[in-house]
C-alpha cells in the first residue's frame, strides 16, 4: 500500500511540459527531476514528496519519445501516474523503466488536486482517502506484466538472451 498527496493536471500533458527539451543536454534522472513539470507547474519539483501521485486527464505523455520524461517523474519520487489514457510511447517507456501507471478515467474524475490517496499497485486499487471513494484501474496486458515482473525491459532482455 502506498499513500501520498495528489498533483492534478488536465488532458494532453506533453513531454515538453514534463521535461522541457532545453534540459535534455543531460540524462541523469536526479538532475532532470529538478525541472520536472516546470513549464506547467513551476512549484512541482520543489513541492513533491516521495510517494506522491500525478493524476491527469487523457493522453498523458504525448509528444516526444524522450525517456527522460518517465525517468524524471520516477526520480521525483512519484509512486505512480494515474490518467484517463496514456500516449503510446510514454506508456512503453514507463513500463520499460519501471514507473507504474494506472489507467482509470473514473478515478481521475473522482480525485482532486491535493487529495490523499492510497494505492495498491499490484491489484490496481485506488482509494481516495479524502473522499473515501475506491476505484479499480485497468489491468496491464499479460505480456507487459512479464516485463514488469522481470524488473523492466533490460532485465527481461538479459534473462531472455541468457536463456538462449
Amino acid at each position, binding site marked *: 500500500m502506498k499513500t501520498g498527496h495528489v498533483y492534478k493536471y488536465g488532458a*494532453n500533458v*506533453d513531454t*515538453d*511540459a514534463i521535461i*522541457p*527539451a*532545453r534540459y*535534455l*543536454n*543531460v*540524462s541523469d534522472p536526479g538532475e532532470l527531476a529538478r525541472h520536472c513539470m*516546470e*513549464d*506547467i507547474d513551476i512549484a512541482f519539483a520543489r513541492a513533491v514528496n516521495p510517494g506522491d501521485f500525478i493524476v491527469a486527464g*487523457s*493522453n498523458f505523455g*504525448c*509528444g*516526444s*519519445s*524522450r*525517456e*527522460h520524461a*518517465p*525517468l524524471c517523474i520516477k526520480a521525483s519520487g512519484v509512486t505512480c501516474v494515474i490518467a484517463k*489514457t496514456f*500516449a*503510446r*510511447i510514454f506508456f*512503453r*517507456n514507463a513500463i*520499460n*523503466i519501471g514507473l507504474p501507471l494506472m489507467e482509470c478515467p473514473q478515478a481521475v474524475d473522482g480525485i482532486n488536486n491535493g487529495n490523499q490517496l492510497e494505492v495498491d499497485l499490484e491489484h490496481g486499487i485506488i482509494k481516495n482517502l479524502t473522499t473515501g471513494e475506491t476505484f479499480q484501474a485497468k489491468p496491464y*496486458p499479460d*505480456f507487459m506484466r512479464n516485463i514488469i515482473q522481470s524488473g*523492466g*525491459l*533490460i532485465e*527481461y*532482455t*538479459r534473462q*531472455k*538472451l*541468457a536463456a538462449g
Partner: protein
Amino acid sequence: MTLAEMILAAHCGKERVSPGDFVEVNVDMVLSNDITGPIAIREFNKIGVSRVFDPKKVVMVPDHFTPNKDIASAEQAKMVREFCLQQGCHYYEVGRVGIEHVLLHEEGLVAPGEVIIGADSHTCTYGALGAFATGMGSTDIASAMATGHIWMKVPDTIRFNYVGEPRRWVGGKDFILHAIGDIGVDGALYAAMEFGGGAIDHLSLEGRFTMANIAIEAGAKAGLFYADEKTVNYEKERTQRPFTANKQKTDAEYTRVVTYDVSNLEPQVAFPHLPSNTRPVSQAGNIKIDQAVIGSCTNGRIEDLRIAATIFKGRNVASTVRCIVIPGSQSVYMQALKEGLVEIFIEAGCAFSTPTCGPCLGGHMGILAAGERAIATTNRNFVGRMGSPKSEVYLSNPAVAAASAISGNIISPEDLQ
C-alpha cells in the same frame, strides 16, 4: 490485411496478424540520436552483450543539439560517436549529418516494406515509403540493438482518403494538419493511420514524408502510404537492397474510414499550444510574429525550400522579423545552393544555417523570449517548445511561413502584394 498488418506479419513469421496481437518483430533499422542515444547506450551496456546484433542495421544521428551547442551536449555527442566507432554502426558527423528523418531516406537506409524503430517520436516519417516505422524510447532501442527484435502490439488502422485537387499553396502539411484538427491529438491513439486517395497519388514523396512525420501528433503509432511507382523509383536511386512494395488488399479491415475533399482546403495554421488547434489561414486574425522558422524534419526538404524561395524572390523579410531557414540535410543544402535558392533567402534577409533540429525543440539557433511569437514549419507547438514557456508557436506550411515573414503578420501567400 492493412498495410501495417502485412508488414508486421512478414516480420514476425506469421501468415496473418490482427489488431491487438502482441508480436515479436524483426527490425530492419534501429535509430537513435544525440539526445536519446546516450540513454540507449547506457541501457545497452547493462544487457551484457558486447556487440550490437548487426551494425548495418543500427544508426545514430547527432542532429538535435549539433553542432554542439554547449559542453553537456558535446559530451552526449561524444558518447554517441565513440559507441558507433567501436560498434561499426552507421554514424554521420557534422558536415555530413542532416536531421535524422530527412537523412535516413535520402541515404537509402530505410525502404518500403521494412520495419524501422527509432528513439525519436517522428520515426513515423518513413511510413511515407510504405515502411512500418515507429518511435519508441531509449530502453526499447537498447533492447533491439542487442537482439534485433522488439515486441509490438499490432495497431488498429484508420484509413484516410484524400480526394479532389488541392489549390495552389496547399500541400501535405495542410492535409495532415486538417486531419489532426478534425480527429484531435489523441484521435489516432495507438492506431496506424493509412493514407490514400487521388490527392495522395499526386503528392510528391516530400509531401508524403511531411504527412507521415506528423502522424504522431494524432497519437498514432505509424502513418503509412502504399509504395507506388514514384516510391519505387525514389528508392531504387538510393539502395541496391531488395525491398517489398506491398499492394493494397481488398480484405483490409479499418476501424474507421475518413474522407476529406481537399478541393476547397485552405492552408492551415495550428495555433498554440496543440497541433490540433487548426484554422484556415484566412481566419488567423491579426497575429504579429517575431520569428519565422522554415526547416525541420517536417518541412526541411528541397521542395519546401523551393516553395519558400518562390515567395521570397524579390521580396524582403519584414524589419521586425527574424527568419531562419534550415535545410534538413547537407544534400538539401547543396541542392538549394545549386538552384540559387540560398541567394534568394539571403537577399530577402533570412538567416541560412547548417542542418540541425535547433529551434524546432527549443535547443539552439533561434530560441524565443517571453512574449514572442513564431510561425514555424515544424510539427509541435507545445508550451515552451521553442523557448520561453511564455512564447508561442504557430505551425504552417513553408508558403505561409514565408509570406508571414515578409508581412510580419500571419497571412496567406495569396494576400502578399
